[in-house]
């Protein structure tokens, strides 16, 4: 480990001095900051003081490289910069910026190392820091993993502060004043005589200066914007139909395209007959694609109709054609040969179980589509030595690279215009739609081609959430949980997803056990084993990834054991919990829900807990058994993200995450028959509708020692809390999602 130590020392030295500019988080040999991409093509008299702040004579633009898929990423990134830059959100424009290594996501490394997020040991922190280097090296400009806030919290505030101090320096030079005599406010430097000098007037001078290096971030007590209710920058446009999404792209001469891919995802397209389709009104061209065909027409609907009229000869699915084959493969994966990890192994589970277990159960979680309401789409214009791509994406640099590979045009001449996203939930971590749109656009150089997936194509070719199976055993004694043994089998999401980008996914896949091995409990004998199932249907990251299935498995198994012990579900979780912020959220939902208080007949209350993405989240769900089925009455949620930057958005994301978790647990699954996904639209993949939505009370805590994101953590506990509540109300233990296979929902 000598090498690790050396790196760590350098990391500390460089890291503490080089965070200036917001991008120079350096470790190891990558201490040179990535070039500031805004310095290319800079207009005359404009200043790009850091990669996040662009000031011209006319305007102030804040660069918000993390994609906004509804989680409010643009607003929070802008607010982090604006807080230190001393501009108000009504004075600025935002722009996602170009794909660039400067915008790599530092926080992604946190979940790629085998340390619990609650582990602050030197070894854990050092390894996280070292992992930063390859991520920076690869320039992973990725939005995901609830990392926008942890990644940007220091970086963006620092970018704003550096820009502010450099502007003050410029004002000092112009007016022959001491910098210390200047203050900043509402986008202007204020001179001692009260004169306001707008930042725009300082841009050309500031551009000649080296960015300031001595800056101090303000304490939270001094914040104007952060920590207070904010109005999202997109709320007016999204309430008036004036927000443009990728699907709304229009360009002179644009043509519209539809696609039809092998219903067995990834299966071959062996041949096709487009003679009928080509005769249809408005059809311009039918183009073969890898695994399918595309139709270019003068109207989206005409393209949809024509795509259906093409006769295609499809090859078989590259995975089991029927669901039995998938479940069998998972069931056969609980063997030493398939063991992927066993990072949690306390006490002596085998010895304890040899005295006789109290429980042996199997849990299942299905494939799930992401199904954001905006179907995937991309507009591509292939020009002379240049390609333009307009799309909503979480992976702009991969998109750029893949379009360059397809067209043979240098990546620097592939211009990615990242657009507002109508929902994602992980869907737009894939870029098939851009690759197909590019192939179509290459068939018509000079013409912008907008490819829109029909809902059916989107849902049936949505690399779904992993299918997963878990087997649990345990033992109780003296009214307490004594032994907990959980094995989880699933194919590797990371191998499947990174494989599609040509990247290796070496080592154990932590997502196979995420939300289970890393839970903050001390149980005398406590073991969590991950088993890597063979690749089945191709899968990808779905809001909360591994924890989306494993939070359900782990917490429900714990609930079963607590009931077997005859203990109180909340009290026993608290007794076992070894992490103060996690205890606090459990205690909070206990108080909010009046846990232990009287309930009506046929009512039940269940608690669920999961720590994911570093965020402990507890939920209490109350259900009633009605003549029409199970009704979810109320949900109480508490989560601790360390610091809440916008309480309005925080509450919205928590409620949305709960509804997302509950809705899919209730009634969603993707199943395969004859190799094809059977669910093609929202009639068979409904999720929660408004009439089913319970009253939800949210409490945010701020005691944890690191700032975290809230996009994903509310999802994993929801299914568990619902299953536990249904058990409390009905005595029926549900161990397989969706629950609608076993109970009706009112």
């Amino acid at each position, binding site marked *: 480990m000598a090498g690790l130590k050396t790196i760590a020392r350098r990391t500390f030295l460089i890291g503490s001095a080089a965070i200036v500019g917001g991008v120079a988080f350096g470790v190891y040999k990558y201490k040179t900051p990535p070039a500031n991409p805004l310095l290319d093509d800079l207009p005359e008299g404009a200043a790009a003081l850091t990669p996040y702040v662009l000031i011209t004579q006319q305007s102030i633009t804040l660069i918000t490289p993390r994609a906004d898929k509804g989680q409010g990423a643009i607003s929070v990134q802008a607010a982090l910069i604006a807080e230190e830059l001393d501009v108000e959100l009504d004075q600025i424009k935002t722009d996602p910026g170009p794909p660039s290594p400067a915008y790599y996501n530092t926080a992604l490394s946190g979940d790629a190392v085998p340390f619990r997020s609650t582990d602050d040991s030197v070894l854990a922190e050092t390894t996280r820091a070292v992992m930063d280097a390859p991520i920076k090296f690869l320039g992973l400009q990725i939005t995901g993993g609830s990392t926008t806030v942890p990644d940007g919290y220091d970086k963006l505030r620092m970018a704003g502060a550096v820009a502010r101090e450099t502007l003050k320096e410029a004002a000092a030079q112009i007016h022959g004043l001491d910098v210390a005599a200047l203050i900043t406010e509402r986008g202007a430097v204020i001179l001692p005589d009260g004169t306001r000098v707008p930042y725009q007037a300082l841009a050309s001078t500031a551009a000649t200066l080296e960015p300031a290096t001595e800056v101090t971030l303000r304490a939270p007590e001094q914040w104007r914007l952060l920590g207070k209710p904010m109005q999202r920058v997109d709320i007016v446009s999204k*309430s008036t139909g004036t927000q443009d999404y990728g699907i709304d792209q229009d360009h002179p001469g644009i043509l519209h395209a539809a696609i039809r891919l092998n219903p067995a995802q990834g299966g071959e397209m062996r041949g096709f007959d487009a003679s009928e389709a080509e005769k249809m009104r408005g059809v311009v061209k039918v183009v073969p694609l890898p695994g399918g065909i595309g139709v270019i027409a003068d109207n989206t609907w005409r393209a949809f109709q024509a795509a259906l009229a093409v006769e295609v000869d499809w090859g078989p699915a590259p995975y089991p054609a029927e669901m039995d084959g998938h479940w069998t493969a998972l069931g056969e994966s609980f063997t030493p040969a398939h063991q992927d990890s066993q990072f949690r192994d306390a006490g002596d589970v085998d010895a304890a179980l040899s005295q006789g277990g109290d429980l042996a159960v199997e849990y299942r979680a299905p494939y799930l589509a992401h199904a954001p309401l905006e179907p995937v789409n991309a507009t591509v214009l292939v020009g002379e030595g240049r390609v333009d791509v307009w799309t909503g994406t979480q992976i702009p640099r991969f998109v750029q690279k893949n379009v360059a590979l397809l067209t043979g045009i240098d990546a620097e001449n592939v211009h990615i215009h990242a657009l507002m996203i109508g929902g994602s939930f992980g869907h737009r971590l894939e870029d098939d739609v851009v690759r197909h749109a590019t192939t179509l656009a290459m068939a018509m150089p000079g013409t912008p081609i907008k490819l829109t997936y029909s809902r059916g194509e989107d849902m049936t070719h949505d690399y779904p959430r992993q299918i997963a199976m878990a087997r649990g055993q345990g033992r109780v004694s003296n009214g307490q949980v004594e032994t907990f043994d959980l094995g989880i089998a699933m194919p590797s999401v990371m191998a499947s997803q990174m494989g599609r980008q040509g990247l290796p996914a070496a080592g154990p896949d932590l997502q196979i056990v995420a939300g289970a091995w890393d839970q903050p409990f001390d149980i005398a004998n406590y073991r969590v084993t991950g088993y890597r199932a063979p690749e089945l249907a191709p899968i990808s990251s779905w809001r909360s990834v591994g924890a989306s299935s494993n939070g359900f498995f782990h917490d429900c198994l714990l609930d079963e054991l607590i009931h077997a012990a005859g203990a109180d579900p909340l009290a026993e979780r608290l007794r076992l919990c070894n992490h103060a912020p996690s205890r606090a959220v459990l205690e909070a939902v206990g108080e909010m829900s009046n846990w232990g208080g009287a309930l009506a007949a046929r009512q039940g209350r269940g608690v669920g807990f999961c720590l994911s993405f570093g965020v402990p989240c507890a939920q209490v769900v109350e259900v009633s058994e009605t003549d029409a089925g199970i009704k979810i009455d109320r949900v109480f949620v508490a989560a601790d993200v360390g610091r809440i930057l916008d309480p309005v958005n925080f509450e919205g994301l928590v409620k949305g995450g709960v509804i997302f978790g509950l809705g899919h647990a209730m009634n969603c699954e993707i199943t395969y028959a004859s190799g094809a996904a059977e669910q093609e639209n929202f009639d068979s993949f409904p999720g929660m509708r408004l009439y089913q939505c319970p009253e939800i009370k949210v409490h945010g805590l701020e005691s944890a020692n690191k700032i975290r994101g809230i996009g994903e953590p509310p999802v994993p506990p929801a299914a568990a809390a619902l299953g536990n509540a249904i058990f409390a109300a009905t005595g029926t233990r549900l161990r397989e999602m969706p629950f609608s296979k076993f109970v009706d929902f009112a």
Partner: protein
Amino acid sequence: MFRPEETAKRGRRVKLTVNGTGHDIKDVEPEMPLLWVLRDELGLTGPKYGCGIAQCGACTVHIDGVAVRSCQVAAGDVWGAVTTIEGLGTPEAPHPVQAAWIEHQVAQCGYCQSGQIMQAASLLAETPAPSDADIDDGMSGNLCRCGTYPRIREAVKTAAAKLSGG
């Protein structure tokens, strides 16, 4: 390839009034769903495509003030004046329902919200003081994948108060 002779043969004139403006669209099949006439022929992109089978409500517009799923109405069958979200109000002068949506910061991704707002405006025109059950009944055909339902409920109530002068 383009076949002008067939276009002439099949094309038919469709007359629509959208947001108070008359449109005489010469070359549209009468069976084309109103949604795609609005989006691809008239450039009105407020109504969204989400499902194409009246399961999500993202395409909701008004015909003579009543909410309809524009993906299910053939352009040739439109029976009255069409209003889209663009015709309901503007960023500078939002309709009371839109103002309520802004006040409650309902939108996350926002993709369903044009449809939600059009549905709510139609509900409130018919039922000015809706009960919780009325809101559940009126709004449950509109899907929101982000889960903004709690704020939709609150915003509908606020909009009802605004519209009744409260």
